[in-house]
């Protein structure tokens, strides 16, 4: 908004001079940030959690003393390769569209006999308290590494969830007038120094979705997509949606469909 105004006021020369120095500084910052991110990429602590997740997956546990190896993420019992990249999806056995975490919890309840409230108590880690769900989702996600996201949302229930997700994406409220679209509805923007994908496009949604679950250095933990989205709501100063609630699953259908075709690079590591 200023730029148009400046030109009429002070002339283009000043603008050019100012823009020149700002650009030089910005590109130096961008170079060093790229170095920072590159230095982190080799040595992702999420790899440690993935190993833990693999062990939890195969371990006989719970009242039914069963492993999760027969859990069906949509491609058949125990078939994990590419499953994460094709979620959320509609499941006949529950009559619901489920994301990776709702499905995982469903399996922990039905196959292993855990109570849902018990297994979801620690759905995310806190310092000193690890989360089994985070480890399992990191492991399951890694099984889709290198595979394209594919959520066409063709089933009527999936299509409806896509539309609900889109509605929530643009829905404004709270004391800062926020919606997802405020930060994630335009190309080429950043918040502080962090690039913001335009999540309404394939490119933006793809860049965002392909790296989850992701180790967040600012949090010292792997975040799942549920954790990511619920925290977005917190940052928007909303109350927290419940873990596994439909609006969080719906947002994922919206984002994954927009990202469809993008190759997964998971687990990721970021600020």
């Amino acid at each position, binding site marked *: 908004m200023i730029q148009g105004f400046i030109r009429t006021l002070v002339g283009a020369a000043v603008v050019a001079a100012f823009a020149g120095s700002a650009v030089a500084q910005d590109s130096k910052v961008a170079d060093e940030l790229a170095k920072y991110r590159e230095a982190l990429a080799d040595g992702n602590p999420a790899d440690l959690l993935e190993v833990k997740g693999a062990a939890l997956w195969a371990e006989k546990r719970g009242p039914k003393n069963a492993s999760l190896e027969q859990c069906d993420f949509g491609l058949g019992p125990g078939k994990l390769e590419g499953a994460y990249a094709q979620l959320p999806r509609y499941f006949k056995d529950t009559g619901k569209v489920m994301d990776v975490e709702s499905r995982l919890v469903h399996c922990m309840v039905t196959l292993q006999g855990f109570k849902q409230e018990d297994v979801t108590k620690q759905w995310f880690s806190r310092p*000193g308290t690890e989360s089994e769900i985070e480890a399992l989702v990191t492991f399951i996600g890694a099984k889709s590494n290198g595979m394209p996201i594919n959520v066409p949302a063709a089933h009527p229930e999936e299509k409806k969830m896509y539309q609900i997700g889109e509605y929530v994406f643009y829905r404004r409220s709270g004391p800062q007038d926020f919606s997802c679209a405020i930060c994630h509805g335009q190309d080429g923007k950043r918040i502080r120094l962090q690039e913001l994908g335009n999540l309404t496009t394939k490119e933006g949604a793809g860049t965002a979705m392909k790296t989850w679950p992701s180790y967040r250095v600012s949090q010292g933990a792997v975040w799942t997509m549920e954790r990511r989205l619920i925290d977005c709501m917190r940052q928007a100063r909303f109350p927290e949606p419940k873990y596994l609630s439909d609006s969080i699953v719906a947002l994922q259908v919206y984002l994954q469909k927009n990202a469809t075709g993008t190759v997964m690079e998971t687990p990721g590591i970021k600020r």
Partner: protein
Amino acid sequence: MAANPMKIRANNKDGVTEVKVLISHEMETGQRKDASGAIVPAWFITELTAKHNERVVLGAEFGTAVSKNPYLAFRFKGGAKGDKIVVSWKDNKGETRTDEAAIA
């Protein structure tokens, strides 16, 4: 809780072995407060050694400023494909862990 295994990678190229270690540890500073406002006691790795076969190739001492889930990379002359790299750490609670990997 038993400590999770480390991830150790060792690669020999042109007679130099590069070792990269990723360790699962809280590295609690002793300055953070929990939700109730109480100080969370310091809990961090203090010492680490890396050995090639039986020979020490690196000794390290850490303070609380080393990041959570510590990462370490170093290089030494020698080492052959298949040789063992053994890394051990000890923390201020006396907990220890040792893992190994073969040089690739």
